[in-house]
């Protein structure tokens, strides 16, 4: 009787949340997979089953491979940098440095500004000729730069904005982690004559590994879902040099209206995300030091 009551309670508690969860995460994920085997429906032609044809198109699509490698480069660039920076920021903010409130405010500021809004400001910074960066660069005697306008550098220009946006957010988690380290550990070490670096590497950092794990999983997810800055700054160009997978999906689905292809791309994105996040979890989990 009690057990039945129990299960009933659980049922009521879980149902509202799970209905939404399943409707907007699990079912769409499955449908994405299923729809990737059909062609796009047009006003005058219905959609039809085409098996692996969409995947074949994808495999042969040079743009896809370009976008794919862009995403990898973006992830490899943004994730470690933003994590390292955020750790540094947390250490600084946590120490007795002058002007801590200002530092904390500045580091965290990008988190509260919508990326789409700030994208325009960054566009100004990067503008060749009259943009801020170019003004500085040329006043130092160097030739003018067209960062967002050249294939080699547009992705990096976009990556810088990604790092700028995320680092402050991760800083908060590291701050929490730092404050959770018992001060007596550090005191004991200092009494024993350990210097700052030793304390950091042997005590602080290992104790922060759970935070690092949490932050890095977040960073992976963010590097795949943040494309607002691309929409405003480069629209993925020049020639897809700064296009990330999600942007390509958006473009295929809502600009070209090639929904079948967009769906196929989504499958790849989901697979990639799962692989990296889960892989990361397993690799790092071994190294995580739990208290």
């Amino acid at each position, binding site marked *: 009787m009690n057990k039945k009551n129990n299960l009933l309670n659980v049922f009521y508690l879980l149902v509202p949340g799970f209905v939404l969860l399943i409707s907007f995460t699990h079912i769409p994920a499955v449908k994405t997979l299923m729809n990737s085997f059909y062609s796009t429906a*047009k006003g005058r032609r219905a959609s039809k089953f085409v098996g692996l044809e969409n995947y074949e198109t994808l495999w042969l699509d040079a743009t896809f491979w370009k976008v794919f490698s862009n995403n990898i480069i973006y992830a490899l660039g943004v994730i470690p940098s933003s994590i390292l920076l955020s750790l540094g920021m947390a250490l600084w903010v946590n120490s007795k440095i002058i002007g801590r409130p200002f530092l904390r405010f500045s580091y965290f500021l990008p988190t509260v500004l919508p990326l789409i809004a700030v994208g325009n400001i960054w566009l100004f910074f990067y503008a*060749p000729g*009259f943009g801020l960066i170019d003004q500085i660069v040329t006043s130092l005697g160097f030739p003018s730069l067209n960062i967002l306008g050249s294939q080699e550098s547009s992705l990096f220009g976009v990556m810088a904005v990604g790092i700028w946006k995320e680092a402050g957010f991760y800083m908060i988690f590291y701050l929490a982690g730092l404050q959770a380290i018992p001060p007596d550990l550090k005191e004991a070490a200092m009494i024993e004559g350990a210097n700052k670096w030793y304390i950091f590497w042997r005590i602080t950092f290992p104790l922060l590994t759970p935070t690092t794990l949490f932050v890095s999983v977040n960073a992976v997810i963010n590097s795949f879902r943040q494309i607002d800055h691309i929409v405003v700054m480069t629209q993925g160009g020049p020639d897809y040099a700064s296009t990330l997978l999600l942007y390509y999906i958006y473009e295929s689905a809502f600009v070209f209206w090639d929904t079948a292809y967009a769906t196929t791309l989504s499958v790849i994105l989901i697979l990639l995300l799962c692989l990296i996040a889960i892989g990361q979890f397993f690799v790092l989990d071994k190294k995580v030091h739990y208290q």
Partner: protein
Amino acid sequence: MIKTFLKIISLFVLTISLSSSAKAVELEFYFPVAVGGAAATTVEELSNKYMELNPGVTLKPIYAGSYTDATTKAITAAKGGNPPPMAVLIAIDIFKFYDEDLVMPWDDILTAEEKENWIGGFYPAFMKNSQIDGVTYGIPFQRSTPVLYYNKDAFREAGLDPERPPQNWAEQLEYAKKLTKKGSDGNIERYGIRIPTKGFPSWLTSGLIYQNGGQMTNGLGTETFLDTPEVIEAVQYLVDLSEKHKVMRPGTLEWGATPKAFFEGQTAMMWTTTGNLTNVRKNAPFDFGVAMLPAGKSFGAPTGGGNFYIFKGTPADELEATKDFVKWMTAPDQAGVWTMATGYVAPRPDAWETQAMKDYVADFPPALVAKEQLAYADAEFSTYENPKTVKIFNTALENVMSGSISPADAMKQAQIDIDKILKDYR
């Protein structure tokens, strides 16, 4: 337990329903908005005036962003089962809307007299991207051509006659060379010319193509001719400006930053839409001139801009109201107001004959340039699957401009890629 549970759920539903009461119900139309011109306020003013004259009709103009955004919005709404009755959308997406079976031919709601006098009264150049097989799908409204803006002060400084803009390709190059200026540090501080090439270089490039006697499409939306000498030469002229003659900033140049570069004196001449005219007039801190794009083998320019489309699924009474509104908007007085506020080209000859327009043009002659160029203007690049095909063309051009591929190779590849898409439509 279940009672409290239900109470909470109803609270939840209440919270949601309070916020979901916000849903649009009026006669709405999307239009791409230009910041910097008085375009947004002008559209609102015109709509308000129409509503005053026609009580019983509620108009709701909706800002939709760039042309690409506006197209996306309209298609999203239409596919979502909630099409707007009408929208101002880029003329060249006509084949896309037709293919997705989203728009209605205007012919269906026009009388024979209207077809002859109203449709027949638009500039033919603008109708080229507005009809399929002679059936009208778009009514020209926010139309333009690119023009050459030039800095008269810079001309004087370089020893050029400020009242004599370059007339042809050779002069354009020669002037650009004279206008390019180096600073004391050896770096170029002012380029002679700026033809923006980032994002949608195809529009301005098609000006060069027409000037060189080339044709990009077959007009039916099913075939392109990019791999032809006329097209390749035009692209070569463009890339030579930055690569060979160094009179234009290298790399792909941002469309949105071009007026600013002009105002800041970083380029002495610029190619951009006549729709920027009022913006330039307001903000240029120097004496400037406007001219037709210099001739190659002849003068030439693409038309551009947006048309009014009507969407399938719109009830008959809304269609009638829409037709009346659009006729009013394109009538001489309103077209004049629109042109004066923005610099877009009034799409009918009769619009230029009103006293208000004549006064305006007398006071500000540059406004006439785009209209006079219409005699040499031709259709903008438009095919089936236009968003995709024009992107292929655009990225090919971007690649040429960033120096990574030759015009011949780029156009050849673009032609192949576009053929793959269009073969299903032939």
